[in-house]
Protein backbone atom coordinates (compact mmCIF):
# COMPACT_ATOMS: atom_id res chain seq x y z
CA UNK A 1 0.00 0.00 0.00
CA UNK A 2 1.42 3.37 -0.98
CA UNK A 3 0.90 6.00 1.66
CA UNK A 4 -0.06 9.44 0.49
CA UNK A 5 2.14 11.94 2.36
CA UNK A 6 -0.99 13.70 3.62
CA UNK A 7 -2.54 10.57 5.19
CA UNK A 8 -1.88 10.53 8.96
CA UNK A 9 -0.29 7.40 10.47
CA UNK A 10 -3.16 6.70 12.87
CA UNK A 11 -5.56 6.43 9.93
CA UNK A 12 -3.32 3.90 8.22
CA UNK A 13 -3.08 2.03 11.51
CA UNK A 14 -6.84 1.84 12.09
CA UNK A 15 -7.51 0.84 8.50
CA UNK A 16 -4.91 -1.91 8.76
CA UNK A 17 -6.39 -3.20 12.03
CA UNK A 18 -9.93 -3.23 10.65
CA UNK A 19 -8.69 -5.04 7.60
CA UNK A 20 -6.98 -7.76 9.62
CA UNK A 21 -9.83 -8.20 12.11
CA UNK A 22 -12.65 -8.27 9.57
CA UNK A 23 -11.11 -9.91 6.58
CA UNK A 24 -8.41 -11.98 8.24
CA UNK A 25 -10.78 -14.85 9.09
CA UNK A 26 -11.49 -15.33 5.40
CA UNK A 27 -7.92 -16.35 4.82
CA UNK A 28 -7.72 -18.81 7.71
CA UNK A 29 -9.69 -21.64 6.04
CA UNK A 30 -7.81 -21.07 2.79
CA UNK A 31 -4.48 -21.35 4.53
CA UNK A 32 -5.50 -24.28 6.72
CA UNK A 33 -6.91 -26.19 3.75
CA UNK A 34 -3.33 -26.83 2.69
CA UNK A 35 -2.30 -28.38 6.01
CA UNK A 36 -3.02 -31.64 7.74
CA UNK A 37 -5.54 -31.87 10.57
CA UNK A 38 -4.64 -33.76 13.76
CA UNK A 39 -7.37 -34.37 16.37
CA UNK A 40 -9.33 -31.39 15.12
CA UNK A 41 -6.33 -29.07 15.22
CA UNK A 42 -4.51 -27.73 12.18
CA UNK A 43 -0.89 -28.92 12.12
CA UNK A 44 0.92 -26.00 10.53
CA UNK A 45 4.08 -28.18 10.19
CA UNK A 46 2.55 -30.50 7.60
CA UNK A 47 1.56 -29.03 4.29
CA UNK A 48 -0.62 -31.38 2.23
CA UNK A 49 -3.10 -31.34 -0.64
CA UNK A 50 -4.98 -34.32 0.70
CA UNK A 51 -8.05 -32.22 1.51
CA UNK A 52 -8.45 -31.42 -2.16
CA UNK A 53 -7.97 -35.05 -3.13
CA UNK A 54 -10.77 -36.04 -0.75
CA UNK A 55 -12.89 -33.31 -2.25
CA UNK A 56 -12.66 -34.40 -5.88
CA UNK A 57 -13.13 -38.04 -5.00
CA UNK A 58 -16.36 -37.25 -3.17
CA UNK A 59 -19.24 -38.25 -5.46
CA UNK A 60 -21.74 -36.06 -3.59
CA UNK A 61 -19.63 -32.96 -4.04
CA UNK A 62 -19.21 -33.55 -7.76
CA UNK A 63 -22.97 -33.88 -8.19
CA UNK A 64 -23.46 -30.71 -6.16
CA UNK A 65 -20.94 -28.94 -8.36
CA UNK A 66 -22.78 -30.05 -11.49
CA UNK A 67 -26.08 -28.82 -10.02
CA UNK A 68 -24.53 -25.49 -9.12
CA UNK A 69 -23.24 -25.00 -12.65
CA UNK A 70 -26.60 -25.97 -14.19
CA UNK A 71 -28.52 -23.64 -11.90
CA UNK A 72 -26.06 -20.79 -12.41
CA UNK A 73 -26.05 -21.16 -16.19
CA UNK A 74 -29.82 -21.33 -16.45
CA UNK A 75 -30.31 -18.40 -14.05
CA UNK A 76 -27.87 -16.32 -16.09
CA UNK A 77 -29.68 -17.03 -19.37
CA UNK A 78 -33.12 -16.36 -17.88
CA UNK A 79 -32.07 -13.18 -16.08
CA UNK A 80 -30.31 -11.83 -19.19
CA UNK A 81 -33.39 -12.30 -21.35
CA UNK A 82 -35.73 -10.81 -18.74
CA UNK A 83 -33.17 -8.11 -17.88
CA UNK A 84 -32.81 -6.92 -21.49
CA UNK A 85 -36.55 -6.89 -22.03
CA UNK A 86 -37.31 -4.92 -18.88
CA UNK A 87 -34.36 -2.53 -19.29
CA UNK A 88 -35.45 -1.75 -22.87
CA UNK A 89 -38.98 -1.18 -21.71
CA UNK A 90 -38.05 1.05 -18.77
CA UNK A 91 -35.57 3.00 -20.90
CA UNK A 92 -38.10 3.65 -23.65
CA UNK A 93 -40.06 6.24 -21.71
CA UNK A 94 -41.33 7.46 -18.41
CA UNK A 95 -44.48 6.29 -16.68
CA UNK A 96 -45.90 4.98 -13.42
CA UNK A 97 -45.89 1.34 -14.49
CA UNK A 98 -42.21 1.59 -15.44
CA UNK A 99 -41.36 2.90 -11.97
CA UNK A 100 -43.42 0.10 -10.42
CA UNK A 101 -41.75 -2.57 -12.56
CA UNK A 102 -38.33 -1.28 -11.55
CA UNK A 103 -39.30 -1.34 -7.88
CA UNK A 104 -40.55 -4.92 -8.08
CA UNK A 105 -37.38 -6.06 -9.82
CA UNK A 106 -35.27 -4.55 -7.05
CA UNK A 107 -37.39 -5.97 -4.23
CA UNK A 108 -36.02 -9.54 -4.01
CA UNK A 109 -32.48 -8.20 -4.11
CA UNK A 110 -33.09 -5.79 -1.25
CA UNK A 111 -35.25 -8.02 0.93
CA UNK A 112 -33.64 -10.51 3.31
CA UNK A 113 -33.12 -13.70 1.25
CA UNK A 114 -35.05 -15.69 3.83
CA UNK A 115 -38.16 -13.65 3.04
CA UNK A 116 -37.72 -14.07 -0.70
CA UNK A 117 -37.09 -17.77 -0.19
CA UNK A 118 -40.09 -18.26 2.07
CA UNK A 119 -42.36 -16.31 -0.26
CA UNK A 120 -41.29 -18.51 -3.16
CA UNK A 121 -41.65 -21.65 -1.08
CA UNK A 122 -45.19 -20.79 -0.05
CA UNK A 123 -46.03 -19.82 -3.61
CA UNK A 124 -44.74 -23.10 -5.08
CA UNK A 125 -46.64 -25.06 -2.45
CA UNK A 126 -49.80 -23.10 -3.17
CA UNK A 127 -49.69 -23.80 -6.91
CA UNK A 128 -48.48 -27.36 -6.24
CA UNK A 129 -45.27 -26.94 -8.17
CA UNK A 130 -42.84 -29.71 -7.13
CA UNK A 131 -39.58 -28.47 -5.72
CA UNK A 132 -36.56 -29.36 -7.82
CA UNK A 133 -33.63 -27.68 -9.57
CA UNK A 134 -36.24 -25.82 -11.64
CA UNK A 135 -37.58 -24.05 -8.58
CA UNK A 136 -33.99 -23.25 -7.57
CA UNK A 137 -33.38 -21.75 -11.00
CA UNK A 138 -36.53 -19.63 -10.67
CA UNK A 139 -35.44 -18.51 -7.21
CA UNK A 140 -31.97 -17.54 -8.39
CA UNK A 141 -33.34 -15.72 -11.43
CA UNK A 142 -35.65 -13.66 -9.24
CA UNK A 143 -32.69 -12.88 -6.99
CA UNK A 144 -30.07 -11.91 -9.60
CA UNK A 145 -32.44 -10.16 -12.02
CA UNK A 146 -32.10 -6.84 -10.18
CA UNK A 147 -28.37 -6.79 -10.76
CA UNK A 148 -28.55 -7.83 -14.41
CA UNK A 149 -31.37 -5.39 -15.10
CA UNK A 150 -29.56 -2.52 -13.41
CA UNK A 151 -26.29 -3.16 -15.26
CA UNK A 152 -28.03 -3.28 -18.63
CA UNK A 153 -30.16 -0.24 -17.89
CA UNK A 154 -27.11 1.82 -16.97
CA UNK A 155 -25.42 0.82 -20.22
CA UNK A 156 -28.56 1.59 -22.23
CA UNK A 157 -28.84 5.00 -20.61
CA UNK A 158 -25.22 5.74 -21.39
CA UNK A 159 -25.93 5.19 -25.09
CA UNK A 160 -26.96 8.39 -26.77
CA UNK A 161 -30.68 8.45 -27.48
CA UNK A 162 -29.85 9.80 -30.89
CA UNK A 163 -28.25 6.46 -31.86
CA UNK A 164 -31.63 4.78 -31.77
CA UNK A 165 -33.24 7.75 -33.44
CA UNK A 166 -30.58 7.75 -36.15
CA UNK A 167 -31.29 4.09 -36.82
CA UNK A 168 -35.02 4.70 -37.25
CA UNK A 169 -34.26 7.82 -39.24
CA UNK A 170 -32.22 5.74 -41.69
CA UNK A 171 -35.19 3.45 -42.23
CA UNK A 172 -34.54 0.61 -39.78
CA UNK A 173 -37.38 -1.22 -38.08
CA UNK A 174 -37.57 -1.69 -34.32
CA UNK A 175 -36.09 -5.19 -34.57
CA UNK A 176 -33.26 -4.05 -36.88
CA UNK A 177 -32.46 -1.24 -34.48
CA UNK A 178 -32.25 -3.70 -31.61
CA UNK A 179 -30.23 -6.24 -33.59
CA UNK A 180 -27.74 -3.90 -35.30
CA UNK A 181 -27.44 -0.93 -32.94
CA UNK A 182 -28.45 -1.81 -29.38
CA UNK A 183 -27.33 -5.40 -29.01
CA UNK A 184 -23.73 -4.85 -30.19
CA UNK A 185 -23.39 -1.98 -27.74
CA UNK A 186 -24.78 -4.12 -24.90
CA UNK A 187 -22.55 -7.19 -25.33
CA UNK A 188 -19.86 -6.28 -22.84
CA UNK A 189 -22.47 -5.23 -20.27
CA UNK A 190 -24.25 -8.55 -20.87
CA UNK A 191 -21.06 -10.55 -20.36
CA UNK A 192 -20.20 -8.59 -17.22
CA UNK A 193 -23.69 -8.85 -15.79
CA UNK A 194 -23.85 -12.54 -16.69
CA UNK A 195 -20.63 -13.31 -14.85
CA UNK A 196 -21.73 -11.37 -11.77
CA UNK A 197 -25.09 -13.12 -11.81
CA UNK A 198 -23.31 -16.45 -12.05
CA UNK A 199 -21.09 -15.55 -9.11
CA UNK A 200 -24.11 -14.58 -7.05
CA UNK A 201 -25.94 -17.76 -7.96
CA UNK A 202 -22.82 -19.84 -7.28
CA UNK A 203 -22.79 -19.14 -3.55
CA UNK A 204 -26.46 -18.36 -2.96
CA UNK A 205 -27.56 -20.42 0.05
CA UNK A 206 -30.66 -19.18 1.82
CA UNK A 207 -33.13 -19.14 -1.04
CA UNK A 208 -31.72 -22.39 -2.41
CA UNK A 209 -32.10 -24.08 0.96
CA UNK A 210 -35.77 -23.18 1.05
CA UNK A 211 -36.85 -23.91 -2.50
CA UNK A 212 -34.73 -26.92 -3.42
CA UNK A 213 -36.12 -30.41 -3.38
CA UNK A 214 -33.68 -33.26 -2.87
CA UNK A 215 -30.96 -31.72 -5.04
CA UNK A 216 -27.90 -30.14 -3.50
CA UNK A 217 -25.84 -27.24 -4.73
CA UNK A 218 -22.30 -26.66 -3.45
CA UNK A 219 -23.19 -24.22 -0.66
CA UNK A 220 -25.99 -26.52 0.50
CA UNK A 221 -23.60 -29.43 0.48
CA UNK A 222 -21.15 -27.37 2.53
CA UNK A 223 -23.91 -26.58 4.98
CA UNK A 224 -24.76 -30.24 5.33
CA UNK A 225 -21.11 -31.27 5.74
CA UNK A 226 -20.53 -28.75 8.48
CA UNK A 227 -23.32 -30.16 10.58
CA UNK A 228 -21.46 -33.47 10.67
CA UNK A 229 -18.27 -31.90 11.99
CA UNK A 230 -15.23 -29.98 10.94
CA UNK A 231 -13.20 -31.81 8.30
CA UNK A 232 -10.33 -30.64 6.09
CA UNK A 233 -12.40 -30.89 2.92
CA UNK A 234 -14.72 -28.20 4.31
CA UNK A 235 -11.77 -25.83 4.31
CA UNK A 236 -10.90 -26.92 0.81
CA UNK A 237 -14.47 -26.38 -0.40
CA UNK A 238 -14.61 -22.93 1.16
CA UNK A 239 -11.32 -22.10 -0.52
CA UNK A 240 -12.56 -23.33 -3.89
CA UNK A 241 -15.83 -21.39 -3.71
CA UNK A 242 -14.00 -18.28 -2.58
CA UNK A 243 -11.38 -18.52 -5.30
CA UNK A 244 -13.97 -19.11 -7.99
CA UNK A 245 -16.20 -16.23 -6.89
CA UNK A 246 -13.25 -13.85 -6.72
CA UNK A 247 -12.16 -14.87 -10.19
CA UNK A 248 -15.65 -14.24 -11.55
CA UNK A 249 -15.85 -10.82 -9.92
CA UNK A 250 -12.49 -9.83 -11.41
CA UNK A 251 -13.67 -10.98 -14.83
CA UNK A 252 -16.94 -9.10 -14.49
CA UNK A 253 -15.11 -5.93 -13.51
CA UNK A 254 -13.09 -6.18 -16.70
CA UNK A 255 -16.23 -6.15 -18.84
CA UNK A 256 -18.12 -3.57 -16.84
CA UNK A 257 -15.30 -1.04 -16.63
CA UNK A 258 -16.09 1.96 -18.81
CA UNK A 259 -14.03 1.74 -21.96
CA UNK A 260 -12.37 4.88 -23.22
CA UNK A 261 -14.06 5.98 -26.40
Amino acid at each position, binding site marked *: MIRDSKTPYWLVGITGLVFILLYGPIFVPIASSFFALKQGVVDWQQPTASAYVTLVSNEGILVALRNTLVVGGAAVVCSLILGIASALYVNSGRSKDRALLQFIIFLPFLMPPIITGLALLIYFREIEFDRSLVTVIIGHTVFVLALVYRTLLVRLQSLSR*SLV*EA*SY*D*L*GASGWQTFR*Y*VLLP*NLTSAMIGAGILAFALSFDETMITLLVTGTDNTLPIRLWAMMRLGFTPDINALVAVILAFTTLLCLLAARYLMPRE*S
Partner: protein
Amino acid sequence: MTTERLLLELKAVSKSFGQTEVLQRIDLAVRDGEFITILGPSGSGKTTILRMIGGFESPSSGEILLDGADISALPINKRPFNTVFQDYALFPHMTVAANVGYGLKVRGVKNAEIETRVGEALQLVALRDFAGRFPAQLSGGQRQRVALARAIICRPRLILLDEPLAALDVELRRQMQSFLKDIQREIKTTFLFVTHDQEEAIAMADRICVMNSGHIQQLGSAHEVYYRPASEFVARFFGDNNLVEGRLGPSSGDRRRIETPLGALVCAIDGQPHLAAAPEGAAAYAVFRPEALSLASTGSSEENRAHGLVTGLHFAGAHTLTSIRAGGHEPVNLRLRLPSKVEGVALRAGEAADLYWRPSECRLVLK
Protein backbone atom coordinates in the same frame (compact mmCIF):
# COMPACT_ATOMS: atom_id res chain seq x y z
CA MET B 1 -32.06 25.07 -58.03
CA THR B 2 -34.94 26.45 -56.01
CA THR B 3 -38.30 26.07 -57.65
CA GLU B 4 -41.52 27.57 -56.44
CA ARG B 5 -42.91 24.06 -55.97
CA LEU B 6 -43.58 23.32 -52.32
CA LEU B 7 -42.04 20.21 -50.84
CA LEU B 8 -43.16 20.46 -47.26
CA GLU B 9 -45.72 22.55 -45.46
CA LEU B 10 -46.34 23.10 -41.78
CA LYS B 11 -49.84 24.39 -41.22
CA ALA B 12 -50.74 25.95 -37.88
CA VAL B 13 -48.49 23.49 -36.10
CA SER B 14 -48.39 23.80 -32.31
CA LYS B 15 -46.47 21.75 -29.83
CA SER B 16 -46.82 21.57 -26.07
CA PHE B 17 -44.78 19.59 -23.59
CA GLY B 18 -47.15 19.22 -20.67
CA GLN B 19 -48.36 22.70 -19.81
CA THR B 20 -45.73 24.66 -21.75
CA GLU B 21 -46.48 25.51 -25.34
CA VAL B 22 -43.12 25.63 -27.12
CA LEU B 23 -44.46 26.22 -30.65
CA GLN B 24 -47.47 28.33 -31.39
CA ARG B 25 -49.30 27.90 -34.70
CA ILE B 26 -46.25 27.70 -36.92
CA ASP B 27 -46.78 28.11 -40.66
CA LEU B 28 -43.78 27.23 -42.75
CA ALA B 29 -43.48 26.25 -46.39
CA VAL B 30 -40.28 24.64 -47.64
CA ARG B 31 -39.62 24.89 -51.38
CA ASP B 32 -38.26 22.00 -53.35
CA GLY B 33 -34.48 22.24 -53.70
CA GLU B 34 -33.86 25.20 -51.43
CA PHE B 35 -31.41 25.65 -48.58
CA ILE B 36 -33.57 26.98 -45.78
CA THR B 37 -32.25 27.89 -42.36
CA ILE B 38 -34.13 28.10 -39.10
CA LEU B 39 -32.41 30.69 -36.99
CA GLY B 40 -33.21 31.60 -33.42
CA PRO B 41 -31.82 31.87 -29.91
CA SER B 42 -31.55 28.90 -27.59
CA GLY B 43 -34.90 27.51 -26.54
CA SER B 44 -36.84 29.15 -29.35
CA GLY B 45 -38.14 25.81 -30.62
CA LYS B 46 -35.87 25.14 -33.61
CA THR B 47 -35.05 21.57 -32.67
CA THR B 48 -38.67 20.89 -31.88
CA ILE B 49 -39.69 21.89 -35.42
CA LEU B 50 -37.01 19.65 -36.88
CA ARG B 51 -37.99 16.72 -34.70
CA MET B 52 -41.61 17.01 -35.70
CA ILE B 53 -40.71 17.02 -39.37
CA GLY B 54 -38.45 14.01 -38.84
CA GLY B 55 -41.22 12.24 -36.96
CA PHE B 56 -39.47 12.05 -33.58
CA GLU B 57 -42.20 14.15 -32.00
CA SER B 58 -45.76 14.58 -33.10
CA PRO B 59 -47.48 17.96 -33.24
CA SER B 60 -50.05 18.76 -30.57
CA SER B 61 -52.18 20.30 -33.32
CA GLY B 62 -51.87 21.37 -36.92
CA GLU B 63 -50.65 19.33 -39.86
CA ILE B 64 -47.45 18.58 -41.73
CA LEU B 65 -47.86 18.07 -45.47
CA LEU B 66 -45.42 16.42 -47.87
CA ASP B 67 -46.31 17.10 -51.52
CA GLY B 68 -49.67 18.23 -50.22
CA ALA B 69 -50.44 15.01 -48.31
CA ASP B 70 -50.60 14.81 -44.53
CA ILE B 71 -47.73 12.74 -43.09
CA SER B 72 -48.60 13.05 -39.40
CA ALA B 73 -49.27 9.33 -39.15
CA LEU B 74 -46.14 8.26 -41.03
CA PRO B 75 -43.55 6.65 -38.69
CA ILE B 76 -39.95 7.93 -38.64
CA ASN B 77 -38.57 5.07 -40.69
CA LYS B 78 -41.10 5.59 -43.47
CA ARG B 79 -40.46 9.30 -43.99
CA PRO B 80 -38.24 10.20 -46.95
CA PHE B 81 -36.13 12.51 -44.80
CA ASN B 82 -32.76 11.98 -43.21
CA THR B 83 -31.27 13.79 -40.27
CA VAL B 84 -27.74 14.91 -39.49
CA PHE B 85 -27.71 14.96 -35.71
CA GLN B 86 -25.94 17.56 -33.65
CA ASP B 87 -23.84 14.91 -31.88
CA TYR B 88 -23.46 13.09 -35.25
CA ALA B 89 -24.99 9.91 -33.74
CA LEU B 90 -22.55 7.70 -35.64
CA PHE B 91 -22.77 4.05 -34.60
CA PRO B 92 -19.60 3.60 -32.53
CA HIS B 93 -19.25 -0.13 -33.23
CA MET B 94 -19.44 0.18 -37.01
CA THR B 95 -16.80 1.30 -39.47
CA VAL B 96 -17.29 4.43 -41.52
CA ALA B 97 -18.38 2.31 -44.48
CA ALA B 98 -20.87 0.35 -42.37
CA ASN B 99 -22.26 3.56 -40.91
CA VAL B 100 -22.76 5.09 -44.33
CA GLY B 101 -24.22 1.89 -45.76
CA TYR B 102 -26.61 1.32 -42.84
CA GLY B 103 -29.62 2.99 -44.46
CA LEU B 104 -29.24 0.77 -47.52
CA LYS B 105 -28.59 -2.40 -45.55
CA VAL B 106 -31.77 -2.12 -43.50
CA ARG B 107 -33.70 -1.61 -46.72
CA GLY B 108 -32.35 -4.89 -48.03
CA VAL B 109 -30.24 -3.44 -50.83
CA LYS B 110 -27.78 -5.97 -52.31
CA ASN B 111 -24.24 -5.92 -50.89
CA ALA B 112 -22.61 -5.15 -54.23
CA GLU B 113 -24.81 -2.11 -54.74
CA ILE B 114 -24.27 -0.95 -51.15
CA GLU B 115 -20.54 -1.11 -51.76
CA THR B 116 -20.61 1.06 -54.88
CA ARG B 117 -23.01 3.58 -53.39
CA VAL B 118 -21.02 3.84 -50.16
CA GLY B 119 -17.94 4.45 -52.32
CA GLU B 120 -19.72 7.22 -54.19
CA ALA B 121 -21.04 8.84 -51.02
CA LEU B 122 -17.63 8.77 -49.36
CA GLN B 123 -16.11 10.18 -52.53
CA LEU B 124 -18.57 13.05 -52.33
CA VAL B 125 -17.52 13.95 -48.81
CA ALA B 126 -13.85 13.29 -49.62
CA LEU B 127 -13.47 10.41 -47.15
CA ARG B 128 -12.77 7.49 -49.48
CA ASP B 129 -9.63 6.50 -47.61
CA PHE B 130 -11.39 6.41 -44.27
CA ALA B 131 -13.90 3.66 -45.07
CA GLY B 132 -12.33 1.15 -42.70
CA ARG B 133 -11.96 3.42 -39.69
CA PHE B 134 -14.21 3.61 -36.67
CA PRO B 135 -15.89 6.88 -35.66
CA ALA B 136 -13.65 7.20 -32.59
CA GLN B 137 -10.65 7.40 -34.94
CA LEU B 138 -11.97 10.45 -36.80
CA SER B 139 -11.73 14.16 -36.17
CA GLY B 140 -14.85 16.25 -35.54
CA GLY B 141 -15.04 17.52 -39.10
CA GLN B 142 -14.58 14.04 -40.51
CA ARG B 143 -17.35 12.64 -38.31
CA GLN B 144 -19.53 15.43 -39.52
CA ARG B 145 -18.89 14.43 -43.11
CA VAL B 146 -19.60 10.77 -42.36
CA ALA B 147 -22.92 11.79 -40.83
CA LEU B 148 -23.70 13.76 -43.97
CA ALA B 149 -22.73 10.88 -46.27
CA ARG B 150 -24.91 8.55 -44.21
CA ALA B 151 -27.85 10.91 -44.63
CA ILE B 152 -27.52 11.53 -48.36
CA ILE B 153 -26.94 7.93 -49.39
CA CYS B 154 -30.62 7.13 -48.93
CA ARG B 155 -31.48 9.87 -51.46
CA PRO B 156 -33.97 11.58 -49.17
CA ARG B 157 -36.31 14.32 -50.33
CA LEU B 158 -35.19 16.52 -47.46
CA ILE B 159 -32.12 16.59 -45.26
CA LEU B 160 -32.58 17.90 -41.74
CA LEU B 161 -29.51 19.31 -40.04
CA ASP B 162 -29.63 20.32 -36.38
CA GLU B 163 -26.76 22.71 -35.61
CA PRO B 164 -24.36 20.30 -37.29
CA LEU B 165 -21.43 22.69 -37.05
CA ALA B 166 -21.92 23.85 -33.47
CA ALA B 167 -19.17 21.60 -32.10
CA LEU B 168 -16.52 22.67 -34.61
CA ASP B 169 -13.96 25.43 -34.20
CA VAL B 170 -14.28 28.63 -36.19
CA GLU B 171 -11.93 27.77 -39.04
CA LEU B 172 -13.41 24.33 -39.60
CA ARG B 173 -16.88 25.81 -39.39
CA ARG B 174 -16.18 28.13 -42.29
CA GLN B 175 -14.84 25.26 -44.36
CA MET B 176 -17.79 23.05 -43.54
CA GLN B 177 -20.24 25.84 -44.35
CA SER B 178 -19.04 26.18 -47.91
CA PHE B 179 -18.62 22.42 -48.13
CA LEU B 180 -22.25 21.84 -47.15
CA LYS B 181 -23.39 24.49 -49.56
CA ASP B 182 -21.43 22.89 -52.42
CA ILE B 183 -22.79 19.45 -51.64
CA GLN B 184 -26.31 20.80 -51.54
CA ARG B 185 -25.85 22.30 -55.01
CA GLU B 186 -24.35 19.09 -56.29
CA ILE B 187 -27.00 16.65 -55.06
CA LYS B 188 -29.85 19.13 -55.59
CA THR B 189 -31.61 18.10 -52.39
CA THR B 190 -33.57 20.35 -50.06
CA PHE B 191 -31.68 21.21 -46.87
CA LEU B 192 -33.38 22.38 -43.69
CA PHE B 193 -30.61 23.68 -41.51
CA VAL B 194 -30.95 24.78 -37.88
CA THR B 195 -28.53 27.21 -36.32
CA HIS B 196 -28.40 29.93 -33.69
CA ASP B 197 -25.55 31.75 -35.46
CA GLN B 198 -26.75 34.61 -37.68
CA GLU B 199 -23.55 34.80 -39.68
CA GLU B 200 -23.81 31.13 -40.47
CA ALA B 201 -27.42 31.53 -41.53
CA ILE B 202 -26.59 34.47 -43.78
CA ALA B 203 -23.61 32.70 -45.30
CA MET B 204 -25.53 29.57 -46.20
CA ALA B 205 -29.23 30.03 -46.63
CA ASP B 206 -31.41 30.80 -49.63
CA ARG B 207 -34.05 31.71 -47.10
CA ILE B 208 -33.91 32.30 -43.37
CA CYS B 209 -36.73 31.64 -40.95
CA VAL B 210 -36.11 33.66 -37.79
CA MET B 211 -37.70 32.20 -34.67
CA ASN B 212 -38.22 33.50 -31.20
CA SER B 213 -39.98 31.78 -28.29
CA GLY B 214 -42.10 29.51 -30.40
CA HIS B 215 -43.06 32.04 -33.06
CA ILE B 216 -41.76 32.66 -36.54
CA GLN B 217 -40.62 36.27 -36.55
CA GLN B 218 -39.71 36.56 -40.18
CA LEU B 219 -39.20 34.37 -43.21
CA GLY B 220 -37.25 35.73 -46.13
CA SER B 221 -33.99 35.84 -48.02
CA ALA B 222 -30.82 36.60 -46.10
CA HIS B 223 -30.83 40.06 -47.67
CA GLU B 224 -34.39 40.68 -46.55
CA VAL B 225 -34.01 39.67 -42.93
CA TYR B 226 -30.75 41.60 -42.74
CA TYR B 227 -31.83 44.85 -44.36
CA ARG B 228 -35.58 44.75 -43.88
CA PRO B 229 -36.27 43.35 -40.39
CA ALA B 230 -39.94 42.71 -39.75
CA SER B 231 -39.82 43.10 -35.97
CA GLU B 232 -37.80 44.59 -33.19
CA PHE B 233 -36.57 41.12 -32.33
CA VAL B 234 -35.16 40.50 -35.81
CA ALA B 235 -33.66 43.98 -35.91
CA ARG B 236 -31.81 43.35 -32.66
CA PHE B 237 -30.90 39.75 -33.45
CA PHE B 238 -28.69 40.62 -36.40
CA GLY B 239 -25.97 42.17 -34.29
CA ASP B 240 -25.09 45.78 -33.54
CA ASN B 241 -28.07 47.38 -35.31
CA ASN B 242 -28.98 50.92 -34.26
CA LEU B 243 -32.54 51.19 -32.97
CA VAL B 244 -33.85 54.65 -32.20
CA GLU B 245 -37.25 54.86 -30.57
CA GLY B 246 -39.80 57.38 -31.78
CA ARG B 247 -43.36 58.03 -32.97
CA LEU B 248 -44.53 57.55 -36.52
CA GLY B 249 -45.09 60.64 -38.60
CA PRO B 250 -46.75 61.06 -41.99
CA SER B 251 -45.92 58.82 -44.92
CA SER B 252 -45.42 59.70 -48.54
CA GLY B 253 -45.05 56.94 -51.09
CA ASP B 254 -42.15 54.67 -50.13
CA ARG B 255 -41.05 56.89 -47.26
CA ARG B 256 -42.33 57.46 -43.78
CA ARG B 257 -41.09 59.91 -41.18
CA ILE B 258 -40.50 59.10 -37.56
CA GLU B 259 -40.03 61.66 -34.77
CA THR B 260 -37.10 60.66 -32.60
CA PRO B 261 -34.74 62.31 -30.09
CA LEU B 262 -32.43 62.75 -33.11
CA GLY B 263 -35.12 64.78 -34.85
CA ALA B 264 -37.30 63.61 -37.71
CA LEU B 265 -35.81 60.67 -39.61
CA VAL B 266 -36.93 59.52 -43.06
CA CYS B 267 -37.25 55.78 -43.46
CA ALA B 268 -37.99 53.49 -46.40
CA ILE B 269 -41.12 51.34 -46.13
CA ASP B 270 -41.29 49.76 -49.58
CA GLY B 271 -42.54 46.17 -49.51
CA GLN B 272 -43.96 46.57 -46.00
CA PRO B 273 -47.56 47.74 -46.43
CA HIS B 274 -48.35 47.29 -42.73
CA LEU B 275 -45.95 50.16 -42.01
CA ALA B 276 -47.78 52.48 -44.38
CA ALA B 277 -51.03 51.48 -42.70
CA ALA B 278 -49.87 52.04 -39.10
CA PRO B 279 -51.50 55.08 -37.45
CA GLU B 280 -49.56 58.29 -36.95
CA GLY B 281 -48.15 58.61 -33.45
CA ALA B 282 -47.66 54.85 -33.08
CA ALA B 283 -44.52 53.87 -31.20
CA ALA B 284 -41.83 52.51 -33.51
CA TYR B 285 -38.10 52.23 -33.99
CA ALA B 286 -35.95 53.61 -36.75
CA VAL B 287 -33.46 50.86 -37.60
CA PHE B 288 -30.19 51.39 -39.40
CA ARG B 289 -27.03 49.35 -39.61
CA PRO B 290 -23.73 50.58 -38.15
CA GLU B 291 -22.09 50.23 -41.55
CA ALA B 292 -24.78 52.43 -43.16
CA LEU B 293 -23.58 55.46 -41.22
CA SER B 294 -21.14 57.71 -43.02
CA LEU B 295 -19.03 60.63 -41.85
CA ALA B 296 -19.47 62.55 -45.10
CA SER B 297 -22.67 63.97 -46.51
CA THR B 298 -23.73 63.11 -50.05
CA GLY B 299 -25.48 66.48 -50.20
CA SER B 300 -28.91 64.97 -50.79
CA SER B 301 -31.72 66.83 -49.02
CA GLU B 302 -33.51 63.63 -47.95
CA GLU B 303 -30.48 62.43 -46.02
CA ASN B 304 -30.79 61.62 -42.29
CA ARG B 305 -28.24 63.22 -40.05
CA ALA B 306 -27.12 63.24 -36.42
CA HIS B 307 -24.50 65.05 -34.44
CA GLY B 308 -22.71 63.55 -31.45
CA LEU B 309 -19.61 62.89 -29.40
CA VAL B 310 -17.37 59.87 -29.85
CA THR B 311 -17.45 57.88 -26.58
CA GLY B 312 -15.49 54.80 -27.52
CA LEU B 313 -13.57 52.96 -30.22
CA HIS B 314 -13.42 49.17 -30.36
CA PHE B 315 -10.90 47.76 -32.77
CA ALA B 316 -12.23 44.48 -34.18
CA GLY B 317 -9.83 43.65 -36.99
CA ALA B 318 -11.20 44.63 -40.37
CA HIS B 319 -13.42 47.27 -38.84
CA THR B 320 -13.57 49.45 -35.81
CA LEU B 321 -16.86 49.80 -33.98
CA THR B 322 -17.31 53.35 -32.78
CA SER B 323 -19.81 54.41 -30.12
CA ILE B 324 -21.29 57.86 -30.46
CA ARG B 325 -23.59 59.69 -28.09
CA ALA B 326 -25.91 61.73 -30.25
CA GLY B 327 -29.00 63.92 -29.75
CA GLY B 328 -29.82 66.68 -27.26
CA HIS B 329 -31.29 66.21 -23.79
CA GLU B 330 -32.35 62.63 -24.56
CA PRO B 331 -29.05 61.24 -25.80
CA VAL B 332 -29.05 58.17 -28.00
CA ASN B 333 -26.10 55.81 -28.33
CA LEU B 334 -25.30 55.04 -31.93
CA ARG B 335 -22.86 52.50 -33.30
CA LEU B 336 -20.83 53.23 -36.35
CA ARG B 337 -18.68 50.69 -38.15
CA LEU B 338 -15.64 52.14 -39.86
CA PRO B 339 -13.02 50.29 -41.90
CA SER B 340 -9.83 49.97 -39.84
CA LYS B 341 -6.58 51.45 -41.09
CA VAL B 342 -3.09 50.95 -39.74
CA GLU B 343 -2.96 54.56 -38.53
CA GLY B 344 -6.40 54.16 -36.85
CA VAL B 345 -9.80 55.46 -37.89
CA ALA B 346 -10.66 59.07 -38.66
CA LEU B 347 -12.18 59.63 -35.20
CA ARG B 348 -10.73 59.99 -31.71
CA ALA B 349 -12.58 59.48 -28.43
CA GLY B 350 -14.09 62.77 -27.20
CA GLU B 351 -14.27 64.31 -30.67
CA ALA B 352 -17.47 65.62 -32.19
CA ALA B 353 -18.78 63.82 -35.26
CA ASP B 354 -21.49 64.32 -37.88
CA LEU B 355 -23.21 61.21 -39.17
CA TYR B 356 -25.22 60.77 -42.35
CA TRP B 357 -27.29 57.90 -43.69
CA ARG B 358 -29.70 57.46 -46.56
CA PRO B 359 -33.43 56.85 -46.06
CA SER B 360 -33.15 53.64 -48.10
CA GLU B 361 -30.85 52.28 -45.38
CA CYS B 362 -33.18 53.30 -42.59
CA ARG B 363 -36.10 50.96 -41.92
CA LEU B 364 -38.95 50.98 -39.44
CA VAL B 365 -40.18 48.35 -37.03
CA LEU B 366 -43.23 48.78 -34.84
CA LYS B 367 -42.74 48.62 -31.12
